[in-house]
């Protein structure tokens, strides 16, 4: 199934590059180690043969469209198309420069969950075959079902099919991941304030401030990020609790009303922090209060740049 789509991606990319319709095709290629696919920029028909499609295409390549001046094609699953809409809406990307190759996402896999299944053993090779994953390494070869090892955000996905596309690769599949997106934030909401703070501190205690989450996020395109600003210095450079908390609270808030829950931040994190806990709460509030989901319409206004006279204000006073 996935190999069949890889072949189609390569064929389409080759055609686009040969006919000079686009200058570059942004997609995924095989990583240097198993389960870690990289982003690939194919600029010649020969490079198009590197493109693949697998269950580990977890990064969000829409980030690389920012500032692109020449026609570019991009392999985009549901969440990536939503981010492209967001970027077009925020005038970072010109629609006429982007040729979107839409693709249905089967739900991407979490390499950490798979690695945790084989403690102390290294996976050398891994194949996907329909609903099964086959992993092999030194002295073992195991087959297990795909659906148990998806990323958390792929279970609660609401748009697996591309929202906009110029060309569709493969067929459209089921639209949702099956889970309820509002439930991501609910485990914390049931607790009292001190317990919440404890669990929040616990979640972010491993953070090493590498900013991989920021760098992977297609929403974070500021020339100078607030964490890099020295004057005023909003956030210290240490891994002390207060600095880590400041960074994560404000990073999440800067994505308010724009986050499409693509999960690139969690996938990029080297220590496995679940920072979607914060963004999913913000998006849930915005859906409930202002009825807005990001990245669905090209002409929608961002919820926090707009107002209505009837906005909820029970918290005021």
């Amino acid at each position, binding site marked *: 199934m996935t190999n069949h789509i890889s072949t189609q991606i390569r064929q389409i990319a080759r055609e686009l590059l040969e006919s000079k319709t686009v200058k570059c095709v942004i997609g995924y290629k095989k990583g240097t180690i198993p389960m870690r696919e990289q982003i690939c920029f194919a600029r010649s028909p020969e490079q198009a043969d590197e493109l693949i499609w697998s269950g580990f295409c977890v990064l969000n390549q829409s980030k690389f469209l920012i500032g692109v001046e020449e026609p570019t094609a991009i392999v985009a699953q549901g969440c990536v198309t939503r981010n492209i809409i967001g970027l077009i809406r925020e005038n970072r990307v010109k629609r006429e420069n982007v040729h979107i190759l839409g693709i249905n996402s089967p739900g991407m896999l979490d390499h950490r969950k798979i690695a945790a299944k084989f403690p102390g053993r290294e996976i050398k090779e891994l194949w996907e075959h329909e609903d099964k994953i086959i992993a092999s390494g030194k002295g073992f070869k195991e087959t297990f079902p795909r659906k148990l090892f998806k990323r958390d955000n792929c279970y609660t996905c609401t748009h697996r099919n591309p929202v906009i596309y110029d060309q569709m690769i493969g067929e459209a599949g089921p639209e949702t991941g099956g889970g309820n997106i509002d439930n991501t934030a609910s485990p914390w909401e049931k607790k009292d304030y001190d317990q919440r703070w404890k669990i929040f501190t616990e979640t972010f205690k491993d953070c090493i401030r590498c900013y991989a989450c920021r760098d992977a996020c297609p929403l974070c395109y500021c020339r100078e990020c607030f964490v890099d600003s020295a004057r005023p210095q909003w956030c210290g450079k240490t891994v002390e609790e207060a600095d880590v908390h400041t960074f994560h609270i404000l990073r999440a808030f800067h994505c308010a009303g724009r986050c499409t829950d693509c999960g690139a931040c969690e996938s990029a994190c080297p220590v496995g922090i679940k920072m979607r806990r914060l963004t999913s709460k913000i998006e849930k509030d915005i859906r409930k209060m202002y009825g807005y989901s990001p990245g669905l319409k090209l002409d929608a206004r961002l919820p926090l740049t707009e107002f209505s006279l009837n*906005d909820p204000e029970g918290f005021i006073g």
Partner: protein
Amino acid sequence: MSDKSFQPKILAFLCKWCSYAAADLAGVNRLSYPPNITAIKIPCTGKMNPEYIIQAFRQGADGVWISGCHPGTCHYTSGNLIARRRFAVFKNLLEYIGIEPQRVRLSWVGSSEAHRFQEIAQDIVDSITEIGPARKMVKNIIPQSYQGVRKI
């Protein structure tokens, strides 16, 4: 945690067109309000950045109060309405991670409402005195784990 000797430090970000004038009017009218409040003048509540709130807590404030014009009376037409949306989301986020809702307050106080300013100021100080000092976001120059080691 009701410690009588605890005096909270509260930062008040007041819109210069209304709440700051109300604070002024309260002074002129000799209406006393608690001295725990430090007023900071901002041009509009729309200028109020969530970074300021976090920064206040990092530097040891026990509460933050943001006050602006009633909806429909903003000097810049819609600054307070945009602030209302922003704070609804940000306040929910702070509550979600475990910062008590009393610590961040947003209110509408018009420039003639000195009595209302006094009432809200008193109410904020009372409610924060009741829940005690804010220690959750404070930036320690020397981490707690080293503090014992340094004392020789």
